[in-house]
């Protein structure tokens, strides 16, 4: 099967400062990849390179077998950015309106049909926020809001879900529920890339781990990551490691 994401020798620098250096990795379809690293380690940059939001200085990225520049099936990718980058906090948009945006890549300039509406309702139901559909996004709690963004990705019938620290500012209980939802989606065949600062969550949930700090320190299954020294190396001897006890 074609890999969902294929990164080959990718480097990227902001000006003189290298942020991602010589990273190669393959993410298979159906995988649940946890992408971890210290603050400023280039996790978000690497994700942006994978999604084509940034162009690598050297190396290449392909999505579902297509070079990322030529990839035009935007509806196959659901992206949940860090909360600070969208206008959910200030703009008066209802939950249903925001989930409906998942249909826009399918619809183009045509009118939305009752089939689109049905898919939106199904997505709301899957993440369990049907009754919040008419509520404004900015009236939701952090956990509910993240569910709304996941619903948008589901409404676009995405095969790949990319999440950038989705549970920052979300209380522990909603966070556990949110990760159970991700597990369920992954079981149904959706590929997941998750950036998460809480390493405990990642090792509990993800099937594979990529640990980066500009360079790739580890990429492999979770067991080999836990046994390796990659964590200490990437975070450095003095680095702060967030750990989540169970």
């Amino acid at each position, binding site marked *: 099967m074609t890999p969902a994401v294929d990164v080959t020798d990718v480097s990227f620098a902001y000006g003189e400062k290298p942020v991602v250096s010589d990273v190669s990795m393959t993410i298979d379809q159906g995988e649940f990849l946890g992408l971890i690293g210290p603050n400023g380690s280039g996790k978000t940059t690497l994700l942006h390179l994978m*999604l084509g939001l940034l162009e690598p200085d050297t190396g290449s990225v392909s999505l579902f077998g297509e070079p990322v520049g030529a990839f035009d099936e*935007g509806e196959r990718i659901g992206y949940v950015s860090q909360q600070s980058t*969208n*206008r959910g906090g200030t*703009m008066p948009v209802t939950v249903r309106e925001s989930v409906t945006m998942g249909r*826009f890549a399918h619809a183009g300039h045509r009118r*939305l049909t009752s089939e689109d509406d049905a898919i939106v309702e199904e997505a709301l139901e899957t993440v369990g926020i049907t009754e919040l559909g008419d509520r404004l996004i900015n009236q939701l709690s952090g956990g509910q809001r993240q569910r709304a963004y996941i619903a948008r990705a589901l409404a676009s019938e995405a095969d790949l879900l990319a999440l950038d620290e989705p549970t920052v500012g979300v209380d522990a209980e909603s966070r556990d529920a949110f990760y159970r939802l991700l597990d369920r989606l992954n079981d149904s065949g959706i590929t997941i890339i998750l950036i998460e600062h809480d390493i405990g969550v990642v090792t509990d949930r993800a099937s594979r781990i990529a640990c980066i700090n500009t360079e790739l320190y580890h990429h492999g299954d979770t067991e080999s990551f836990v046994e390796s020294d990659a964590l200490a190396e990437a975070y450095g001897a003095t680095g702060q490691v967030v750990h989540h006890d169970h």
Partner: protein
Amino acid sequence: MPEPIDSTNREHEHGTGGDRRRLLEHCGLALTAVIALVMLSFVLLYWLRDNPALANAYSQFMIAGQWFDYYLGTNVFQWAFMWQSMATGVLIGIVAPLIGTFLVHREMALIGETLAHTAFAGVAIGFAGGAVIGWSGSPLYAALLVGVLGALGVQWLAERTNTYGDVPIAIMLTGSFAVGTLIISWGRGQRGIDIEGFLFGDLAIVTAGSARMMAVLSVVVVAVVIYTYKQLLFITFDEQAARVAQLNVDAYNTLLIVMTAVVVVGSMQVLGVILVAGMLVIPVAAASQVARGFRETMYLSILFGQLSIAGGFALAISQGLPSGGSIIVVAIAIYLLSILLSSGRVTAMSMH
């Protein structure tokens, strides 16, 4: 299984109250549409009034205007030039809040102000250039050209600096105004220039030609927004996700900013360079206070825009005041009311 989310004890703002509100909004919009169509047909009839087939329709229209004045005790509706200003006003009240809804929520509110100043340089070039080449048409055509070029310039800067930052905006705003004042000062010797009308807004400077231009621009802008509504909404709400969904974000940004320039130039004659941004921003700010969704924000913005125009015109015509200031003052009054209304709702709820 997904966890059920507890929302049963929170009151849903639906039911009959919501339905009545929606009905009211739709009635208001339908009325706005009818008024806009009447205004567009006036512009069309006035333009084609020498055509024998339409001459009769035009004179009937003006006779209806005389009846209006007779019953209302006014001296407004019998004059073609008043209809031209009113048509321009009604169309401004639709397209400015329509575009403004996206601008405000993209945090690009000052773009309108900048483009108005750029367009002002265009008006100056139109006046002075017209005098040099002996062309007596509306300086608004030059303003439209310069405004659109300015819009593309702002977008070019924004793409390279990765932001609609306030420094490039401030430079563009003052720079183009500076150029405008230089040209005006030079052009005074060439041709009598009524620049005050463009600075503060004046119903008397609306000509048949400029009303016609506004009519065409408005129809185009409304059509483009309807056609690209989904894309504009998506890039406004979450630009990165829209990029990942393979929307051509830069192209839609450029489209939005060029439409802003077009709306600003069309609105300048009635509102004035300095106040034109108010109509892009204030009705939207008022609507955002009370709306329960994006589509409703857009609808309410247009309704508030129409109310501002109607109130402002009534004030300007009855008291002999400048139109721009009158319209903006009414818009601000609506904005303050919307704040009172939305905070009133909060206190009413907390009293229970």
